[in-house]
């Protein structure tokens, strides 16, 4: 019998937060349930898209941050 999963279970699976047994159960279900596979695929595609929206700041602001750190040489803290 194919186990049923909540929508939140699928989110945890897509983000790699299910434990080994849950992962095995979901992956078995994916091989047997095309609708479930399509659902997971859709989630994965949006997730992949978000990861690709990263942007970088200008080199200027990074240089200013480095300079601030160098110019503010406080006493080394005790770790």
């Amino acid at each position: 019998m194919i186990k049923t999963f909540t929508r939140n279970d699928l989110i945890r699976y897509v983000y790699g937060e299910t434990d080994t047994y849950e992962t095995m159960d979901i992956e078995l279900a994916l091989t047997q349930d095309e609708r479930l596979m399509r659902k997971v695929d859709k989630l994965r595609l949006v997730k992949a898209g978000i990861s690709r929206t990263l942007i970088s700041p200008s080199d200027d602001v990074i240089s200013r941050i480095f300079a601030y750190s160098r110019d503010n040489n406080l006493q080394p803290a005790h770790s």
Partner: protein
Amino acid sequence: MKKTELSDATLITLYKNGDEKAFEQLVLRHKSRIYSTIYLIVKDRYTAEDLLQETFIKVIEIVKGGRYLEEGKFLPWVVRIAHNLAIDRFRREKRYPTIVTEDGAPLFEALSFADDSEESVRMRKETHLFLRSAIQQLPEAQREVLILRHFANMSFQEIAENTGVSINTALGRMRYALINLRKKMIQNNYTYDKDLYPK
């Protein structure tokens, strides 16, 4: 030979002891995630750079002042600082969503488009631009979970603890964020072609 990458915790320890290069490495390692977090909230690249600087000034003062508690979570900590500063600024200035135009194009430095046809590069750029704008328009609670999961690398459990909600609420917000983004993409004819996201 590949150099071994030092952990954030090691770099912080070196920095506490006066090693500025260690700090530079930390900044370079995480600058895109932190900057993107801010930009997705304030929607303006100059304000985002200003707040990025403010974020790191806080980090510098806390670490050099000996007030940083090492818990192995440097990035989530900095992203939380950045997120809070951005939300404060956004609320103070009451900036409402603006349309992102092609002016944002030079900001795509973090994306790699090597070995692609001009057409697919253009399509991918447009899709990312649209997606970024769609993220900016998400309800605040959904956008917060999305940012903390994607850019701060926090687990849903950690997000729940940090934002004072149950894990099911955090998961639900993420789910709605993904559903909303997908809907917007479809409504605006941005196809979800697997080829848009090569590994």
